[in-house]
């Protein structure tokens, strides 16, 4: 009952929160002293990056680990990992795009050899590699095992991205939202907008994940309907 209700509410809640974020971000919050209206990207880029790195890649990694662990091994986990990784590609690309858009006016270039930028791009290639690896393996069990191992190996990159700003002391913004002292360095309406954007994009992720998962289940179901047909035609071979 609760589960159904929360599922039913996922879509509307996402829409409401994201709508609120855009409304607050574009019209209500003030422009920044230094950045001017560019600061409004603050309500998009960090939240998307957060979802790309932690929420979606994290989901994929945890699901993969659960698949590899014998006690929780099931294709449900494999499917979740796969769908999360696909959605993750979308969010990584969005991170790169919003970051580039922000970088052009602030740094004067679309791209820089900054450690965070490069490692984020590498994460994108890893996610694509994951999808390519799935394509190359046809046996479902082997595919699930191999891609799970690969997802876990790839996850090593996530902390590297996070700490890259400290380790390499480069161009990219240091921790602003999640500082080690956990005090938010922005205030008032901006803080609320930021909060909404994080929650909103996180909900968006789960919404997309659910949609993708259902599609995958449907695809598998339709292929199991095809299976009966395939079995019948195979059995009739050679029995003329």
């Amino acid at each position: 009952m609760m589960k159904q209700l929360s599922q039913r509410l996922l879509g509307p809640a996402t829409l409401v929160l994201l709508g609120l974020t855009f409304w607050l971000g574009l019209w209500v919050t003030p422009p920044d002293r230094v950045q001017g209206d560019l600061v409004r990207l603050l309500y998009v880029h960090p939240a998307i990056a957060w979802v790309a790195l932690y929420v979606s890649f994290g989901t994929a990694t945890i699901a993969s680990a659960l698949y590899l662990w014998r006690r929780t091994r099931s294709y449900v986990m494999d499917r979740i990992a796969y769908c999360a990784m696909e959605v993750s590609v979308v969010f990584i690309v969005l991170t790169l795009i919003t970051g580039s858009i922000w970088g052009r006016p602030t740094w004067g270039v679309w791209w820089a050899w900054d450690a965070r930028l490069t490692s984020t791009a590498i994460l994108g290639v890893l996610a694509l590699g994951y999808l390519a690896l799935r394509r190359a393996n046809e046996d479902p069990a082997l595919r699930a095992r191999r891609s799970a191992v690969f997802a876990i190996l790839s996850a090593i990159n996530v902390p590297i991205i996070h700490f890259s700003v400290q380790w390499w002391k480069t161009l990219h913004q240091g921790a602003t939202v999640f500082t080690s002292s956990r005090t938010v360095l922005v205030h008032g309406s901006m803080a609320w907008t930021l909060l909404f954007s994080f929650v909103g994009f996180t909900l968006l992720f789960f919404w997309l994940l659910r949609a993708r998962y259902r599609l995958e289940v449907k695809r598998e179901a339709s292929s199991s309907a095809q299976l009966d047909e395939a079995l019948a035609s195979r059995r009739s071979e050679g029995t003329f």
Partner: protein
Amino acid sequence: MIRTALLVAAKDLRIELRSRVLLWQVVPFGVMALLLSGLALGPAHAGSSSAGPGLFYLVTLFVALLMINRSQAIESTPGTRASVATLGLDPAGVFLGKSLALCVELWATGLVLLAGAILVLHTALHGALVALPSIGVTLAAMAAAGTLYGALTAGGDGAATLLPVLTLPAFAPLLIAGERSFSAALHGGALWEWWVILAVALVVYLAIGVLLYGVLEES
């Protein structure tokens, strides 16, 4: 000759479309190599746009090696070689066809890599557009040379590893001319001479291929 060339090119491209090796594997590899080259050289070097053309060609070169390799691998499963040999295809046509298919694939990959260079290495968009024709010719010459050298190393053991050794020296002049003309397009300078060199190289490789490909095929 032309008919054979088209037949062979269509076959190679169809196999590529079927297996999607290019889309899923070679292109991401190129993008990755671009990122890594940038990293390996450190921000100081990579950022300076004077390194852009060099890196672009270096990466294209490695991608081309993968693709030449694949282009030969298609022909060299044990049985294929014998069955196809007995079709008695015109070697000049086979050469042109395989070059053509390789060229199309290289162009497609080259465009992606160029976009990457513009985004990642700050190569000026305008300069890149000016350089486009010279890049096209360079890649075409690479395709022709690669097909030639691919046939040279085909069949033997470890073809995959022998190929680069032979091909790299042959690519060196192309690489230099391509890089210089790209740089010239970016920073101004004489475009003509490099153009001529590249076009001559293309014609020479095509001519050698048409004349000698038959000799290279396993007897």
